[in-house]
């Protein structure tokens, strides 16, 4: 078919041109800091935030019907920074199978649901998410009795360890112990409940699972203080809020709203002193860094499509990252998790905000 053969290149040229035009128009739409998502959220007057809803310390319903937890506080912080009010959030409980579809179809604006950041989830050819900074570095941990004398994984050589069978947890433990050349006796159980029951009966010296999970289970033990989490972490589970990568302006706004929480901790700005710091910044023209961070001068907010005082609003609403951590999963909560990897970079942790400049 010579006719078709002649037509095809033309067709493909035309379609390429059309696609380019389409892309260009899309780019120009979002390039001038026009974010459909931000406009939509502002018009609606509330942020729709996808949470897990059933995870101790991260998101759960309090007796008064209010959501709380670390993931929930991230929703509140973003709502405060964009809309100026942390209560303007509508929460959607999402299960793990529908979370990405809910984000992609626009049913939720922000996914703050203990989601591990991975390549396939981030890639445009995968789930096409745009990840904000990691808000909780979880990972597989090991719990032992405080009086057992076990200080590290190596001390567990030749000892029985309780694991849930058929989980990645089991495989990670086997890999790590082989690396350490420390043979051990795995005691495998079908369910989490059986595993912890066996540990409490003393049938094994240690039990392994995700650290946040171990800490949550520990709160139920007869004597929670008698159990310790070892410092070693066997796997990487960076739990990270996400948006779709369809609207880069919105993704950046979320990203820097989260960074602001971390930067505030680094600068020592807390929920309690943010008003005082703001007054200080206003009165003192020499405090250029603080003035820019709190939106007294410069146009950080405008650059992101957020109000100028977004940092102040956020911190006043939920406090800085350290306060959020302590309140929900740290010493101020029943989980009593150690900061561990979630310390500020200046103290040897991974919480690191790029400069606000």
């Amino acid at each position: 078919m010579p006719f078709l053969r002649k037509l095809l290149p033309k067709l493909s040229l035309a379609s390429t041109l059309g696609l380019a035009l389409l892309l260009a128009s899309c780019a120009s739409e979002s390039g001038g800091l026009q974010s459909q998502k931000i406009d939509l959220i502002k018009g609606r007057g509330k942020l729709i935030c996808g949470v897990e809803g059933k995870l101790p310390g991260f998101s759960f319903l309090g007796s008064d019907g209010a959501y709380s937890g670390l993931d929930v506080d991230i929703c509140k912080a973003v709502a405060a920074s964009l809309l100026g009010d942390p209560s303007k959030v509508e929460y959607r409980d999402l299960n793990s199978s529908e979370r990405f579809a809910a984000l992609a179809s626009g049913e939720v604006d922000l996914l703050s649901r203990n989601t591990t950041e991975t390549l396939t989830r981030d890639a445009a050819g995968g789930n096409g998410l745009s990840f904000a900074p990691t808000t909780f570095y979880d990972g597989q941990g090991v719990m032992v009795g405080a009086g057992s004398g076990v200080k590290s994984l190596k001390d567990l050589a030749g000892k029985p360890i309780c694991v849930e069978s058929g989980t990645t947890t089991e495989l990670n433990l086997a890999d790590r112990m082989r690396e350490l050349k420390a043979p051990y006796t795995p005691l495998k159980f079908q369910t989490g409940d059986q595993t912890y029951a066996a540990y409490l009966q003393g049938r094994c010296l240690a039990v392994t699972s995700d650290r946040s999970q171990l800490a949550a289970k520990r709160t139920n033990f007869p004597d929670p203080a008698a159990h310790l989490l070892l410092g070693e972490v066997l796997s990487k589970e960076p739990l990270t809020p996400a948006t779709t990568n369809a609207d880069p302006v919105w993704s950046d706004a979320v990203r820097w709203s989260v960074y602001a929480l971390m930067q505030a901790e680094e600068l020592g700005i807390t929920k309690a002193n943010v008003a005082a710091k703001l007054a200080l910044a206003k009165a003192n023209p020499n405090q250029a860094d603080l003035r820019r961070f709190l939106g007294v001068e410069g146009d950080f907010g405008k650059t992101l499509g957020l109000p100028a005082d977004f940092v102040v609003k956020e911190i006043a609403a939920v406090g800085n990252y350290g306060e959020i951590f302590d309140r929900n999963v740290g010493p101020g909560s029943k989980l009593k998790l150690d900061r561990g990897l979630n310390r500020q970079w200046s103290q040897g942790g991974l919480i690191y905000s790029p400069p606000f400049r």
Partner: protein
Amino acid sequence: MPRVVRSSLRKELFANPIDGLVSVLLISGVGAAGYGLIHWALTQAQWVVIQANSTLFAVGRYPIEQQWRLWLLVALVAAATGLSWGALRGLPQRDRPITAVWPRNDRIAAIVLVALCGWAPAALGLAWPIQARWWALTALLLVLRWLAGRYASRLRKVATLGLPLLWPLLYLVGMVLIGGGLGLVTVGANEWGGLLLTLIEASFAILLSAPLGVVLALGRRSSLPLLRWGSIAYIEFIRGAPLITLLFLGQNILGFLLPGGLAPDRIWRAAWILTFFSAAYLAEAVRAGLAAVPRGQLEAARSLGLNLPQALSRVVLPQALRIALPATVGQFISLLQDTTLLSLIGLLDLLGTARSVMANPLYLGKSAEVYLTLAVLFWCCCAALGLGSRALERRLNPPTLGP
């Protein structure tokens, strides 16, 4: 122990040595389990998780300042229950005379009701004003029951006309009270939860799937090929897919198919899917009923000069639906229980709320208390449906057939 009881016990449980052995084993097994449960419930269980979250279990995240609307609705339901109950006893029926305005069963029911409403709120440690409200509601129900039983026969016209209208009207009023509109503040569907959401979803699906099921059953038996094959395809497609698959489909796909906020809220999406699902099963129950009505009935009705709709609605369907009633109510009960699947798609129905409450670090590990409470609540709802259906069966059976 009276001799009659003793002899019947002996006959039923200890007729011969093997019977006796089995009886002793079974009774001691059941007894030990029952003792264990009661011992646990009274001494070890920490019911504070239920006390502290009772509002959450009942209505979910419904705004506190609007909860008076739900109380009003409960009061209206109590009033309507009292009126209907009294009128059913007080009105002379076509097929039976008024025997007694307060038969023995009714007296027992009233005593159980009073005991339950006196004990349960106190046992749950609810606040005084709320306890008082439950007492007032019980009193309202019983007073109206008494009044209606006494005066229904005098106001016969009003009662026979009003009663059938009362419940549909109440349902509409209830939806307005719950959701808002007509001058009331709107309370979005995503703020409904707990038992409230479970009951809304179940009642919505039950009410809409019943007519849809009848239409599908008639369609499947129709002589028009398009209608027949359409109905068959629909029924077989729905019955071929598990409910949870359809629910996931609705939650995940509809958002893409109907963009821009056209898709109904996910609560209503789930309600419609429950409806469509249940309709397919109901259609089969009704079809069984239709098949049990002899062909001659339809032919006789037609030969008397009734047209098809008249023959169906006056002769065939009343008989078919009566036969299909037990299967239909069975479907309704399983529909009520199927609403627990909504917790898997992230809705805060009774089970979803419970799972969320159990994640509260304050109540970690209190799952036994929570699940037991849920089981009792579901049992109450399903038992009510079952009781209602048995009463309806007795009433619908022609006197010559029924016991």
